[in-house]
């Protein structure tokens, strides 16, 4: 089991329990986390599952691939900590992960 905390722009927190092997986006959708749209269903083709990874976790979640970096061009208010949640595969090491949902996904 992997525990993830999603923090909304208003500061409210939602802790979800999910399984390794799923992506962060899938875990968000399964738990109805608001603000994660994932219009393309996880194909890294829409940039509507944008999240900010908490600084303490950035090393563990890694850096975006070239394809993800290209797709982040289509996201709004992209920051150093920006990732597309469909491209983060959950592992036991990510238990406790904290991410922030952006104000808007377009």
């Amino acid at each position, binding site marked *: 089991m992997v525990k993830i905390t999603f923090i909304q722009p208003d500061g409210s927190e939602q802790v979800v329990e999910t399984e390794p092997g799923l992506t962060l986006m899938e875990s968000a959708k399964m738990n109805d986390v608001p603000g994660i749209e994932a*219009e*393309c269903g996880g*194909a890294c*083709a*829409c*940039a*509507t599952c944008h999240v900010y990874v908490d600084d303490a976790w950035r090393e563990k979640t890694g850096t975006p691939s070239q394809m993800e*970096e*290209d797709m*982040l*061009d*289509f996201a*709004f*208010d*992209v920051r150093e900590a920006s990732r597309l949640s469909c491209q983060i595969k959950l592992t036991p090491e990510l238990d406790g992960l904290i991410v922030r949902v952006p*104000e*808007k996904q*377009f």
Partner: protein
Amino acid sequence: MNLNVSPSPAGAVIETDAVIIGAGPAGLFSVFELGLVDIKAHVVDILDKPGGQCAELYPEKPIYDIPGLPSVTGQDLINRLLQQIEPFGAQFHFSERVEVLERLPDERFRLKTDAGTEFITKVVVIAAGGGSFMPKRPPLTGIEAYEGTSVLYSVRRMEALRDKSVLIVGGGDSALDWTLNLQPLAKSLTLLHRRDEFRAAPHSVEKMRQLVASGAIRLMIGQVSAIHGTGDALEAATVKTKDGEERIDVDVMLPFFGLTMKLGPVADWGLQLHENLIPVDTEKFETSEKGIFAVGDINTYPGKLKLILSGFHEVALMAQQAAKYVYPDKKVLFQYTTSSSSLQKKLGVN
């Protein structure tokens, strides 16, 4: 692939049996199933090519749940469907969006696109997937007021930008192409992108770099954080860069952040909707309006799965009912393509 693509003359009225809205897999296979029951169709799509989400969102990605095709990419599936429907000679109308759909006194339907093409048809098949692909609107406060006048998502008339201070936002081919096209006539042009890397044709990037080096345009690395103006006239934009915020003069902003799907005009056609989807029965896949069908991702019914294969099934049943409207006096004989010589004749294989 031979597609009958018609840039139909504005003002022309096309009389037909069926109009299919959407050229994704469900729309394309509608051509096939309608064709088998002798219904000729016109297909309208807002994109400039067939394929819908398969072509726009995941052309290179494999799909693993199409029966009989263990792995097929989005684009390959579309190519195969186009080949399969070729015998039926459907007429395609790309880069057009159906704006108006209304019933005529004689029970047929009138459709009109944003390009002015008009259809009179006996049945309508809505295969619009997630709705219309539309340019993404940057979520900047107050941007709606400027859209169409000083915030543009496409350029219809370049002349309108002569001697303007233009801000282009984005790093793909659209952003680069318009930077190169508009630079000669704009008063000033700033290209703004979040990183100093561009996902566009290398020769465009090279040309842009030369223009930056010669001082003809300005390249900024950052993002727009606010826009300012009066009424519908933009005056400035606040750009956030790693060195802080800068306010630059802007008459016209062109944001290029790709496409998103919105339900669009479907909502205005008087159809019953449920959470932006069109409820249908599971016998005919007909909407609340007789003669208007909805197939594929845009419909909903108990147990609905948004799968391409479900769309194919829906389309086959839809065509049976459509035949009853188009040929009210003809009994539809259920036949197999494997054994029916009349179906094989239609397919051009016999």
